[in-house]
């Protein structure tokens, strides 16, 4: 966005957004849950982020809804807890927050549990598709000159004479004057590589979720959540921007080293089920759950975000420990980081004249009228070939996703990458009908044999069907057939 920056974005995964951004509650928080006395930066940037996302979602064509949220209370004690958020809303200058009781509550949310006494209503809350938000931002960044390097893992940070000079990666050395550490769950390690904040450690906090099919009858109009108490944190029930009921998360503090523990547990899913049933009038049958998953949030000591531009080494910037409301605040954090860089390093930020703030989403059939679909097919017959039946995704959309992945510099076209861009495999069948069809298309487009097409992180198969028999024959006879 500013002149004279040559920006490279480094990502260890094959695609963007596969860390903390992939699995969270997908909420743009209003900012009435942040205590400005203890976490002033979080409180400030949350409110700003909430406002900025409205602009960003419009400019970048990101799926977002603004239904507002209800923090539901079911007892006098909970009401007392909930009332505290009115004070916080006042302190943070969050508009429209109020307590609503029975009639008003039912009018706002027909799916509310009849036992609910009332709720704190915050009208500025929204839901977003976090993965698509990350993808949209990166597409726009690349369009404006940022270079993306995927499958590139930082192994060390080079400092010379109290200045950073670059990073060492599995793909070689990359020179840099300024290094911004936004490595999510691994940001502490990166910080330590720069010799900064040796006592700063991130603890993974796991959140488990259940996602239901689109066609369930109970779909909350608002974002609902239980009142957090000293014992339990809030559990949400939302209708995602794609129309699925989602409930969760748990909040399980894991050991520092458990940075890949994204597995679900019986206990965790049971807890979510129990808590969610307190706020909804009824949960759909368990058979309507199409997916369960877990994500990790990076919890910093004391819950304090570590956003700082260092003078020693000059050029190293931490944006670390970005726990909730990180997604909400992200656009505001970006501005804040730039401000810090400008201030600490004495860099004058000059806005680019040639700057394209816009990005268009993939053209999709879903939600279009028959006439619109018909004219799209006339334009490009690939819109008339449906490859994902559950979500009605056409071949044209998948090809567009592949082309967009290539355009931002992604080296490995994965099924998951296509999934997050087009929603294939996100329906009831969870890909059992379409995965091979998509993999075939990727195989055709990339020249990779079908078995080598990467699904998430490894190949679709292990080889051609006769490979094990050939191996056996060669062992027996001592003759290699290869």
């Amino acid at each position, binding site marked *: 966005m500013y002149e004279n920056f040559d920006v490279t974005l480094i990502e260890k995964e094959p695609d963007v957004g596969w860390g903390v951004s992939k699995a969270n509650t997908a909420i743009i928080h209003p900012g009435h849950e942040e205590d400005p006395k203890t976490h002033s930066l979080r409180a400030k940037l949350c409110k700003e982020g909430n406002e900025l996302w409205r602009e960003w979602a419009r400019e970048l064509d990101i799926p977002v809804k603004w239904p507002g949220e209800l923090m539901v209370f079911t007892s006098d004690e909970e009401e007392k807890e909930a009332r505290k958020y009115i004070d916080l809303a006042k302190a943070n200058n969050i508009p429209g927050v109020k307590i609503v009781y029975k009639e008003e509550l039912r009018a706002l949310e027909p799916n509310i549990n009849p036992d609910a006494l009332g709720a704190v209503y915050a009208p500025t809350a929204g839901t977003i598709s976090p993965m698509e938000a990350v993808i949209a931002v990166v597409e726009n960044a690349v369009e404006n000159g940022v270079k993306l390097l995927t499958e590139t893992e930082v192994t060390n940070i080079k400092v010379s004479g109290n200045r950073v000079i670059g990073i060492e990666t599995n793909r070689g050395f990359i020179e840099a004057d300024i290094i911004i550490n936004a490595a999510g769950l691994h940001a502490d390690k990166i910080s330590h590589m720069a010799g900064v904040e040796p006592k700063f450690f991130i603890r993974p906090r796991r959140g488990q979720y259940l996602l239901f099919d689109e066609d369930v009858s109970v779909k909350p109009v608002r974002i609902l959540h239980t009142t957090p108490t000293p014992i339990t944190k809030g559990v949400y029930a939302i209708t995602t921007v794609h129309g699925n009921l989602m409930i969760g998360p748990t909040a399980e503090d894991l050991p520092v080293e458990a940075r890949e523990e994204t597995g679900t547990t019986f206990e965790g899913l049971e807890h979510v089920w129990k808590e969610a049933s307190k706020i909804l009038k009824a949960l759909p049958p368990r058979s309507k759950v199409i997916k*369960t998953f877990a994500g990790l949030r990076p919890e910093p000591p004391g819950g304090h975000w570590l956003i700082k531009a260092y003078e020693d080494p000059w050029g190293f910037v931490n944006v670390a420990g970005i726990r909730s409301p990180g997604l909400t605040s992200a656009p505001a954090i970006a501005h804040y980081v730039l401000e810090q860089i400008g201030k600490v390093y004495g860099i004058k930020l000059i806005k680019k004249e040639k700057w394209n703030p816009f990005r268009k989403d993939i053209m999709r059939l879903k939600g279009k009228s028959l006439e619109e679909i018909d004219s799209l*097919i006339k334009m490009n017959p690939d819109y008339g070939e449906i490859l994902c039946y559950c979500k009605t995704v056409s071949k044209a959309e998948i090809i567009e996703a592949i082309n967009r992945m290539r355009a931002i510099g992604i080296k490995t076209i994965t099924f998951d990458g296509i999934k997050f861009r087009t929603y294939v495999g996100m329906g009831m069948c969870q890909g059992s009908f379409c995965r091979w069809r998509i993999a075939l298309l990727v195989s055709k487009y990339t020249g990779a044999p079908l078995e080598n097409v990467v699904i998430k992180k*490894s190949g*679709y198969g292990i*080889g051609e069907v006769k490979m094990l028999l050939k191996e056996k024959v060669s062992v027996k006879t001592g003759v290699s057939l290869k």
Partner: protein
Amino acid sequence: MIEEKYDAVVIGGGPAGIAAAIKATELGLKTVLLENRDILGGIPLQCVHPGFGLHYFKEDLTGTQFIHRFFDRMEKIGVEYITSAHVYSIEYRDYMEKIVNVITRKGVLRLCSKTIIYTVGARERTIFEIGVVGDRPDGIYTAGEAQTMMDIYGVLPGKDIVIIGSGDVGLIMARRFALEGARVKAVIEIMPYPGGLMRNVVQCLIDYNIPLLLSHIALRVVGKKRVEKVVVARVDENLRPIPGTEFEIECDTIVIAAGLRPYVDLLEKLGVAMDPATGGPIVNELLETSMPGVFAAGNALVINDLADYVVEQGEKAAEGAKIFIENRGIPTEEWKPVKKGRNIRLAVPHYVSGKRDVTILARVAKPEQRVFVELPEVGYKVFHMAVRPAEMIRLDLSKDILSKAEKSITIEVKPIGQRT
């Protein structure tokens, strides 16, 4: 948009749909068969194993051979069909007028039809539906997906395999993996008896020394990039895992064969009533659903044991469509409900008139030996050496027998010696 008029639109080009389209065309109905894949044939195309056609053709055929017999018939009769045709929605205008909106590479087709025969088949239950927790690495496939990969596209999914569920597809895939030199470490079944046909247990597992773990549950998947192992435990009689019985099986691939569910998406949107026991629509003896002129057959109606039965249902639905069109609706009857008595979990069709011969297919809830299958209202009684949930009970009932029923007919299973 292209608009066309039909007597019958058949949705789904597997064995049920093909049989329905052939029969409907033979009966003189202007018929079109729609298939969303780029080839007709459905699942039998990828079934390289035998066991097809024993009932219908009195021959033992592979799935591929079986379905090709129908392709030949289609050609002879000249059945109209469209492949790569995705049914986007169905509009119910009136009992004699339904619009099927179809997305094709040529544009959106609006097919106006008097009847619809719904034969889209089934969907496999996923790992999430059966409640397995843990990691979600690569290397987890449904049995059908693994079969497509191997027997259509020649790709081997993995080499150390654990199969969850002992339904027929799982058993057949266990043998396919074994034949390819892969190691099938175990087939895990939560129930105390296998989920598939006994012939498949013998021919696919016992013949290949593949362990079948009955009364076991897969609890948790472990693996970062690719599946590394699965944690398994024994279950008690309530199917709850018994603490302390957990053990691990190392594997690189998990195949889910935990049963099929009728794929009833479009029927649900039409407002068709469903039977929770079958997961499919409630139908009368002509296989007409609760929406007039909308018929269902094959695995979209009820999960069948044999493709042969599926074909019969397709033909039956076509006959129903013919009767519907000739009479401008199915003539009003006093439909008698088919009731589920002792040890009957499901039965199809749900209503009979007593004026036609009807084949009733039923499944028991639990296995039993030396029993009578009885229809007390009509005095029908047949001895069975054994009944098992995996094997459908087939009752070919003449109208003479069925006409004796006054209000309903009940199917029940009675052990020998127990009085009615």
